[in-house]
């Protein structure tokens, strides 16, 4: 276990040394967050309060999304790993007495958490001092906050397990570009990154809810504001657990296949 923790810690150490990247990312996220808040304000006015989510719930959804972007975005997967597969540097990873899957999983979690920790504090600080309706409110209750933390962890697990599946598939296609294009565009939409899922028409929402992407950040961010509450919470959490296990299983399965027929590229 300690080995995997160390992967996490190293990735963390590597992640926090890029300070300038964190500062610029912060600016982007603040501006982006404000723009989104204003856009939904306009929608709110135009629809005379007929929105599927409370405006305050949307605001907290937006700010949490910006603050914890690094935990859940699938398009910023660990480039080093793609590079390793492409160039053949994976040789060294295979020369270690460890499971490649577990090694990469912890490395990914470490990378995401380090990036998120650096960014979330300033974004959250700014978000709670925003004027009036654009302010990020406190969670509905202490219990809800606990649930929020739990579902953040599960959601992160689902996201990383999904990325792992993509890495493993790259062993079969030589270049990772194709998979990334297909998945990242679709996932951004289906996970509620572009538009929160409650805005989807009922028919599409049913489809989205049967996909793993609805169990990434959609669950914790809506629990936080009380938009997802009561009887709806349990199935959402169970869904997260289910998809976490299913994606890990699928990833391991693909890895077993890849391991057999792996060709290290380059001399």
């Amino acid at each position: 276990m300690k080995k995997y923790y160390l992967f996490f810690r190293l990735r963390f150490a590597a992640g926090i040394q890029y300070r300038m990247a964190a500062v610029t990312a912060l600016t982007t996220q603040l501006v982006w967050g404000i723009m989104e808040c204003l856009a939904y304000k306009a929608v709110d006015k135009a629809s005379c309060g007929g929105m599927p989510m409370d405006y305050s719930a949307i605001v907290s959804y937006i700010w949490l999304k910006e603050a914890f972007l690094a935990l859940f975005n699938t398009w910023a997967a660990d480039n080093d790993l793609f590079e390793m597969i492409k160039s053949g540097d994976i040789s060294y990873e295979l020369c270690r007495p460890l499971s490649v899957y577990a090694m990469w999983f912890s490395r990914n979690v470490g990378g995401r958490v380090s990036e998120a920790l650096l960014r979330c504090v300033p974004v959250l600080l700014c978000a709670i001092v925003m004027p009036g309706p654009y302010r990020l409110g406190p969670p509905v209750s202490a219990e809800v906050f606990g649930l929020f933390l739990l579902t953040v962890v599960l959601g992160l697990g689902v996201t990383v397990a999904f990325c792992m599946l993509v890495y493993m598939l790259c062993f079969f296609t030589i270049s990772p570009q194709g998979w990334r294009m297909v998945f990242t565009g679709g996932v951004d939409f289906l996970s509620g990154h572009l538009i929160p899922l409650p805005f989807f028409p009922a028919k599409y929402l049913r489809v989205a809810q049967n996909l793993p992407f609805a169990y990434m950040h959609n669950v914790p961010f809506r629990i936080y504001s009380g938009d997802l509450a009561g009887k709806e919470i349990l199935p959402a959490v169970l869904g997260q657990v289910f998809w976490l296990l299913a994606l890990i299983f699928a990833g391991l399965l693909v890895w077993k296949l890849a391991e057999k027929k792996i060709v290290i590229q380059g001399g």
Partner: protein
Amino acid sequence: MITMENVCKSYKVARRDSGFGQAFRSLFHREYEEVQALNQVSFHIGDGEMVGYIGPNGAGKSSTIKILSGILTPDSGTCVIDGRIPWRDRTEHVRHIGVVFGQRSQLWWDIPVMDSFELLKEIYSISTPQYKNKLEELTRLLNLEEILKTPTRQLSLGQRMRCELAASLLHEPKLLFLDEPTIGLDAVSKLAVRDFIKKTNKDHKTTVILTTHDMQDMEAIAERVILIGRGQILLDGTLGDLRQAACVDGELQEDSVNLDQIMAALYQKLNIM
């Protein structure tokens, strides 16, 4: 102890002529060619031996190293290393081997070398006193003192290669595979690397298998040379045997030419270029 018997490995390579028309055609119809990388390769290497593995580019050297380290599965044949089949018992096998791929890096790119070493300590479950001893020894022999705190990305090639060697020996493996460890190094670094390899072999009885194109490496390090070409073992003996084989028809005078010329003559004679 390494025993390799009748190992074959072939790759499927997509081939086409250059040009847009050909590229377009290959969308619909792709021609593959089987390239036989290893063809009935057999050899036997005892404990503590130092073996140079040579041959022209594309002869199958790296494929052999990859099979020996368990990261490539051959099409047929057997290979047993200390009772283990490398690709089948990979996780167990790699505990006992150290590998350096000269053209790749095992150190984390953006953190100090020391951190990469600490990670290796955990990966191989090395006890703290053992790790300290080994690290101290390696630091002294490879002159690493100054560079351990530097991030890998800022090391020169020679410095990096010294660190790579140290990294592959931290867990005190019984077997060391070196795939072109001196590629691109300057004279000083080359000498340092050679001396270090010799010393490791002598002090710890580490079995070393080394591939290289640098004939001086061979002369300095290898007691035994295995020559491979077109996937087949052509010669297994000492450097002297190699010289004799090249000079047998009298075109070359053994003492008037250097090793590189001998190798070139040999490659041409055996028609393996």
